[in-house]
């Protein structure tokens, strides 16, 4: 272990991989100094664990109905978060629901930021009419309230988890484009870009290899901060019946079905609500921590 750390901290690494791992290790050390970010990380790791090992973490089949045991309050032996109106165990449904939440979050995280990063860096690097056209398109998308645009898209495409992801991704990319463009504008006039241009590099190589690495940290930070919003929109679509369809255990959908019993059996809606709250909080804390770790302005030295 000690030699491993020695190897990571070597100021003169012997290979590309060692240099990269060494930088990651330093970033991890910076991150570890921030207790709130570690709380966020633990929450997200717990979510990942829950999703990966759902059959073992859950106590019941999330779809198994048992009408004789419906609407049991939390703390009931065997159903420690209670049961819903079909007698399904709420804890198990939350555990399985984490898979759907993660699925949505991951799909959005690999589509929207990539699209936004591409559009933003291209617009920022070329400037002129390319910038004008791309940014006006971005403005049009930004002008719609996100949930309303997602609703309209789902209404056109039909309800379902893939369409919900598509709708969320299509409404989520413009802020990334804006962030990436702003970052590109500060980078494109720098000497190191002038130097690589002087070496005869084409626009593709400069944008991909030299501009994007500078935009990536702010985009990654935004992604983690936006994840909470994505979960909420996915839950909102589920709540409105336009996302995931019953009986799939999706958190928004669970809140929606608990609405009918909100005053007498509060736990049916509250438990999945708490799950959304905790996971959103986790992503937000992690995002704030990553800002300190990845922001080139704070990690320059």
């Amino acid at each position, binding site marked *: 272990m000690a030699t491993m750390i020695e190897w990571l901290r070597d100021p003169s690494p012997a290979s*590309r991989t060692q240099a990269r791992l060494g930088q990651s290790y330093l970033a991890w050390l910076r991150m570890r100094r921030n207790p709130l970010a570690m709380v966020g990380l633990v929450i997200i790791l717990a979510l990942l664990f829950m999703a990966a090992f759902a059959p073992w973490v859950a106590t019941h089949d999330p779809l198994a109905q048992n009408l004789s045991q419906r609407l049991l309050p939390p703390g009931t032996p065997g159903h420690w978060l209670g049961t819903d109106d079909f007698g399904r165990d709420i804890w198990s449904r939350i555990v399985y629901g984490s898979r759907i939440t993660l699925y949505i979050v991951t799909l959005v995280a690999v589509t929207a930021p990539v699209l936004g990063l591409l559009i933003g860096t291209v617009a920022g690097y070329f400037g002129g009419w390319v910038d004008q056209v791309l940014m006006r398109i971005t403005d049009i998308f930004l002008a719609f309230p996100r949930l309303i645009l997602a609703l309209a898209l789902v209404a056109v495409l039909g309800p379902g988890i893939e369409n919900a992801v598509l709708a969320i991704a299509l409404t989520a990319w413009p802020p990334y484009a804006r962030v990436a463009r702003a970052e590109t504008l500060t980078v494109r006039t720098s000497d190191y870009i002038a130097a*690589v241009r002087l070496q*005869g590099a084409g626009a593709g190589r400069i944008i991909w290899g030299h501009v994007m690495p500078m935009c990536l940290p702010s985009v990654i930070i935004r992604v983690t901060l936006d994840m909470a919003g994505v979960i909420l929109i996915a839950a909102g679509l589920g709540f409105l019946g336009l996302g995931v369809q019953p009986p799939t255990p999706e958190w928004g959908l669970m809140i929606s079905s608990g609405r009918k019993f909100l005053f007498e059996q509060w736990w049916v809606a509250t438990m999945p609500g708490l799950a959304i709250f905790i996971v959103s909080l986790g992503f937000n804390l992690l995002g704030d921590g990553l800002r300190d770790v990845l922001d080139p302005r704070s990690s320059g030295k």
Partner: protein
Amino acid sequence: MALIEVENLSVHYGTKEKLVRAVEGVSLSLDARESYGLVGESGSGKSTILRAICGLAPITAGQIRIDGQPVPTPRGRAFSRRVQMVFQDPYASLHPRHTLDRTLSEPLAIHGIGDTDARVVKALQDVGLPANFRFRYPHQLSGGQRQRVAIARALMLEPEILLLDEPTSALDASVQAETLNLLNRLRSERGLTFLMVSHDLAVIDHMCDRVLVMQHGRAVEELTRDQLASATMTTDYARTLFEASADRMLGA
């Protein structure tokens, strides 16, 4: 025939209402293997001439010729193999997220030159950096080391012309001398042609055979090293500039 000829070069920025005349009708010519200096106060347009030569500033009027051929726009790959530039600020001219290895191998990748490993190691050695610096990031280096990397990068494509934009002004005095000596050594080893910008006549005196004094975007006077040494300048401005750095020149 002169290697670089700049004829009546003008560089203007901005719109009609607010025009900045950065360079106005400047001519100069360099022979191969010569070292030529551009000197003047801040904003006298000396850096702009370098940037115009390598296509980073627009040519409003006049012509730039290399080997008798007008430079193409955009400059193209053939140009980048002949002419490279070292920038003023080594803190800004290296990509902060690329290792030295990446920075130095990038020009090879662009031009499809193989044998990357050996060339990168050799480039580091040539500028006096140990080979185990190869996978460091710029923030792990001092200013002088960074400028050595920038010089190594400019030499990766084995150009014959090196444009030096105040290569030592961001460094402290002792490192400055080291870097200048390194440049002088590389020039004699490789037969490079230098076009060097500085605001410091002492640096120019140490480095250059001839020097053009500039003020407000115009050429004031061209001096040879002998004229500089004997202080036989004809214009008042050149004399003022000389007097400001004379004591350090005699010491050098």
